[in-house]
């Protein structure tokens, strides 16, 4: 009589161990797994500055266009983006590649600040709003050798810095900010003109756009400026328009400047010895430590006793400097980051490092970079975390909430933040995955 098979019963320890050893091993990441570089953007979407067309024109008919992207959203790019800049409603992304397409732009293009984007419907006209990162055709002599180092965006113009062919400017030139002669009644929309600037005393290493003016810093440490000067932001000693980049003197004559910054109508420069120089608009007490006038048209040395300054960032109404020991100082007007009670100050005030994550548990956390938007501030720590504070205009802080932020708040980005570019109502960051 056939016996019934015995029930399985709980597996003994030996059976469990054998089953475990026999199990297949999965490999998700090999030894050569590299960290990928990604781009994240957040803020106001209707201008197309975030580069995701489905925010403005949804794919399906029942979906509604998204007005604000409150948290970081990944932007797919073909190449690794090394430099990004946010203007007033548009964004430029640049890569260090040797391919023909080196710079992509998206957002507002009403003044051809993104070059000429040929419309597919009408071959003679250009797009006024570019919703996807589109390559900008630069008139390079050696397009397969030149590399783009940096881009910068202002209100309606943009600058592209290359390593061997000077600086390319495009966009609105009604104040000479593109470095060429102002043409009366020039129509900037749909213009093919991209101007090239080569005559500087040495190679240009940094370009900065203010609201309607441009600053160029050369390798020798001199600063050139052109554009609107009614607030003295060109620093040339007068309040007129300059249409040709001219060297600045004043307190920075002979000083080796290592960094320039501007976004609104005020400008800051940092020398190699850690001193800070400022010029331009001072209506918001930005330069009130040296002068009572509201416009300063010659660079003045700002005698702050805060230590060696490593980096400076200029916003619309407030300024930010980073010292060598990793501390952040703010002054000016607006939401400065020290609670709702500090609205304006003429003297730099330090933001307590505990707000950036430094504690007894992790005492070596310090701020590595500082950036400014029009009324927002951003700080990057050496651990790759991004802190933002300021006015939350149309969700540009990326915190997920719509309220203003009175002290530094961490932005949740899936990766280590390498760089961030702040605009008026949107921000773009370059992130490395883990």
């Amino acid at each position, binding site marked *: 009589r056939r016996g019934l098979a015995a029930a399985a019963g709980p597996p003994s320890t030996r059976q469990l161990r054998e089953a475990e050893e026999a199990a297949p091993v999965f490999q*998700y990441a090999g030894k050569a797994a590299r960290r990928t570089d990604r781009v994240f953007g957040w803020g106001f979407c209707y201008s197309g500055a975030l580069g995701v067309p489905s925010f403005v024109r949804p794919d399906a008919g029942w979906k509604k266009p998204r007005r604000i992207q409150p948290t970081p959203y990944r932007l797919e790019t073909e190449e690794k983006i090394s430099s990004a800049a946010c203007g007033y409603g548009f964004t430029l992304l640049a890569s260090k590649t040797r391919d023909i397409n080196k710079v992509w732009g998206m957002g507002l293009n009403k003044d051809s600040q993104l070059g000429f984007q040929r419309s597919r419907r009408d071959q003679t006209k250009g797009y006024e709003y570019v919703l996807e990162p589109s390559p900008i055709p630069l008139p390079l002599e050696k397009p397969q050798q030149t590399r783009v180092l940096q881009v910068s965006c202002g209100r309606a113009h943009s600058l592209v810095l290359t390593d061997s062919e000077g600086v390319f400017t495009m966009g609105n030139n009604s104040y000479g900010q593109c470095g060429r002669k102002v043409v009366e009644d020039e129509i900037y929309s749909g213009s093919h003109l991209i101007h090239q600037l080569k005559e500087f005393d040495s190679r240009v290493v940094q370009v900065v756009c203010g609201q309607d003016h441009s600053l160029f810093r050369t390798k020798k440490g001199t600063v050139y400026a052109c554009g609107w000067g009614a607030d003295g932001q060109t620093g040339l000693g007068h309040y007129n328009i300059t249409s040709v980049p001219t060297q600045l003197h004043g307190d920075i004559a002979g000083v080796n400047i290592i960094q320039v910054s501007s976004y609104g109508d005020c400008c800051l420069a940092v020398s190699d010895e850690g001193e800070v120089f400022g010029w331009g608009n001072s209506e918001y007490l930005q330069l009130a430590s040296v002068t009572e006038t509201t416009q300063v048209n010659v660079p003045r040395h700002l005698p702050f006793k805060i230590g060696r300054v490593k980096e400076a960032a200029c916003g619309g109404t407030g300024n930010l400097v980073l010292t060598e020991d990793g501390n952040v100082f703010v002054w000016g007007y607006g939401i400065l980051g020290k609670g*709702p009670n500090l609205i304006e100050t003429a003297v730099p005030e330090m933001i307590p490092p505990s707000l950036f*994550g430094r504690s007894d*548990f*992790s005492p070596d956390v310090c701020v590595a970079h500082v950036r400014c938007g029009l009324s927002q501030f951003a700080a990057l720590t050496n*651990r790759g975390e991004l802190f933002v504070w300021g006015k939350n205009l149309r969700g540009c802080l990326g915190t997920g909430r719509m309220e203003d932020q009175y002290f530094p*708040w961490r932005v*949740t980005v899936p990766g280590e933040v390498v760089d961030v570019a702040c605009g008026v109502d949107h921000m773009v960051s370059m992130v490395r995955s*883990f």
Partner: protein
Amino acid sequence: LNAAPGRAPRQQVRFLPAPAGSGAVELVAARVPVLADHPRVRGPRFRKLKIGAGHRLDVKASGVFVLGIGHGNKLLTDLYNCHLTKVYTVGGLFGKATDDFSDTGNLVEKTTFDHITREKLERILAVIQGTNQKALLMYSNIDMKTQEAYELAVKGLIRPMGKSPPIITAIRCLQFAVPEFQLEIHCLHETQQYLRKVVHEIGLELKSSAVCTQVRRIRDGVFTLDDALPRTQWNLQSIQEAIRNCQLKVETELERTL
């Protein structure tokens, strides 16, 4: 406890008749012990002890476990409302994933782990700290726009004073020897299973898998490993001494917070 010398019986003044032999018929005041306090009448002093437990500890976990006796139970509720952080040492092992996140569960998957370095682990830990820091600020129910919120944030004293999901306030790597690693975690409102889940998620983030081998609580509010009694010292004298040593600490902590 009952064998220890108890309270001395209460004394009362009673008027007793004069001892026989003196001939006087009058009452003499004498101090005699109250009969109701006699040990044979009263019985043993302690028949039941009310013992309450502090924060829960799993069967598979070990470490400091706070108990309150008698009046201590009320102090326990007060300590609970203080919402102090607890510190755990969590040991993990890369390469395996099980269904209950610990090394005694059923195997789900085995993965490679040779690409994991200490630097990658520390990066992941920094991210965990960052997201939990945000959760800390959000669940503390303070209006972010006020000056006092800013001042508390500077000092690092913002804490959720009510119910909240588990929050990790600090995490760091103590040891790393592939495939084993050990973390020190400071947390609030957590369960040990949540910590095992965190270990599992760390494994997933590093594109591998991890199981938790050990969870040990080394601090629970004010009580550290030094105050805790090991199994060999579970006798009356040590317990009484420990209670006496901790009283002062508990009082200061309660006064500071409440």
